[in-house]
């Protein structure tokens, strides 16, 4: 079953074509990694999927429904969860409250109905011991975990992770990768933008390479990383 499908999606800002006829689809349960040099249009692609940006042309379907013109809020409620590149916690709220607000509004349920969900996610993301700590007091790793946990709390069918491993130490990165791997093992569909390649390849089954807004390769990570074109464009290696 296909969760997300983009067909011929394009977006320009003025004369600059940041997304150029992008087509791909993500089956349920898959983890897809997106790589590409800075300015390749990765974040724009995320914003198109979340609905923060509307494409100029093309079609986006989510769970079989055309969501091309649906506002971001609708898509959250339909099951598109996202984490931000720079963690954006609700600093005045505790970790638990951060999850509670996401779960309650993302799933359209009462606060009481989401407590168990939040507790499970706190366990999965190793934040249980910090449940009653104000989010403003968290370390970078825990802020990243909170980004992930809060996105999970909205009850997503599809989880979008935006450079969640960036800025972490080797050890922290390993811990976070293990957490994400755990979520994926439970069946979560993931699209993950990442510069930290080894983190990405430890989880994803499929890799998409973006350059100048175009998809220049999509497939198994080993095949993609070995491809001459990708090595030239993305890694800057002369073959």
């Amino acid at each position, binding site marked *: 079953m296909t969760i997300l499908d983009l067909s011929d999606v394009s977006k320009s800002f003025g004369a600059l074509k940041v997304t150029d006829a992008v087509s791909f689809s993500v089956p349920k349960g898959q983890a897809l990694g997106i790589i590409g040099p800075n300015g390749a249009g990765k974040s724009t692609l995320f914003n198109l999927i979340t609905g923060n940006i509307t494409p100029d042309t093309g079609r986006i379907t989510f769970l079989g429904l055309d969501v091309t013109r649906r506002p971001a809020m609708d898509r959250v409620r339909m099951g598109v969860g996202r984490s931000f590149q720079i963690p*954006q916690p*609700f600093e*005045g*709220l505790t970790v*638990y*409250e951060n999850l509670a607000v*996401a779960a309650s509004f993302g799933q359209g349920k009462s606060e009481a109905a989401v407590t168990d969900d939040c507790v499970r996610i706190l366990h999965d993301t190793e934040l249980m011991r*910090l449940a*009653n700590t104000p989010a403003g007091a968290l370390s970078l790793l825990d802020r990243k975990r909170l980004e992930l946990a809060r996105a999970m709390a909205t009850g997503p069918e599809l989880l979008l992770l935006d450079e969640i491993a960036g800025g972490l130490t080797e050890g922290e990165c390993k811990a976070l990768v293990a957490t994400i791997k755990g979520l994926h093992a439970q069946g979560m569909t993931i699209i993950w933008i990442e510069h930290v390649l080894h983190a990405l390849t430890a989880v994803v089954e499929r890799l998409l390479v973006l350059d100048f807004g175009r998809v220049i390769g999509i497939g198994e990570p080993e095949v993609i990383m070995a491809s001459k074109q990708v090595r030239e464009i993305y890694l800057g290696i002369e073959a």
Partner: protein
Amino acid sequence: MTHHVVTRTRTGTIAGIAAVALMVLGLVLPAFASRALIQDLFTILTLLTLAQLWNLLAGYGGLVSVGQQAFVGIGAYAMFAGVILWGIDPVLAIPLGGLAALVLAVPTAFFAFRLQGAYFAIGTWVIAEVTRLLVAQWKALGGGTGTSLPREATSDIIGVEAIRALFGLREAAARDVLAYWLALALAALTIAAIYWLLRNRLGLALAAVRDNTEAAKSVGVDARRIKWAVFLIAAFVTGLTGALIYVQTARISPDAAFSVTDWTAYVIFIVVIGGIGRIEGPIIGVIVFYILQSTLADFGAWYLLTLGVIAISVMLFAPRGLWGLLSARTGLHLFPVQRRLITAGPDHGPSMTKGEKEP
């Protein structure tokens, strides 16, 4: 191993009992208090209500309005219109004040919500000034010089006769008692309603929107709708308060009813020195403000300079206000809103928040 969420604390419960006791004391106070005290308390209670509402807007909703005098003024004028034009009892005309403010709040929000931060503040102020200028054209209500409530309307306000008989007071004093009781009820209901709102799901959403609007939207919180709701609620109750203030004053002019100093600047001062974003803040703030006013009011310009110096000092050295300072030192919350996840069972659950004990 089970989990549950609590907001109640022991201090919160004690504070609740104390609040009920204070209410009872407040209700019976006119039996033995002087008229001057009742009048002073009326002023304090109405300022407290305005401050709670401004705190809801700015402290919780992130809407820093400098135009709340628009709703005080339009509320007061709507009450006057009800009395003078349609012959309604002044007390029964108070709801008209709330409705008029609500109606004015719709176009105000429509324009002002297009502006952010400082521009929003200035925008609301401009709208208030425009409203003042328009109301000053209303000849039937005295135009630019204003008017008074007619003698026959103030002489038989509903309930005044009963209060006269109850306490053996003269008519004017009985009117003050009635206004005071209404102010007490309005302040108590406003605080209770805000507290209820904050403990509700909407309170979480408000805090999320205030902390980070983009992130709030990304988890499904309709930030725009919440801001609208808060703005309209605050305007409605501000309008009621304005109408009540002018039932007691019985004399109105556009300059007084739409005064940015009286209905917004002082109110901001109260919230800022008391502690923004906390229900306790405006309560502390209004007490401090009242003490300053009664001790320094004779010094004219020096009084205002002192207020300014105090406000700036608090902003620099205690940005969370006097209550914030106290609360940070003692962990005291009289109106606890924080949800705490409590784990019962063998699992090592989350640690308790500092300074609070499980009830």
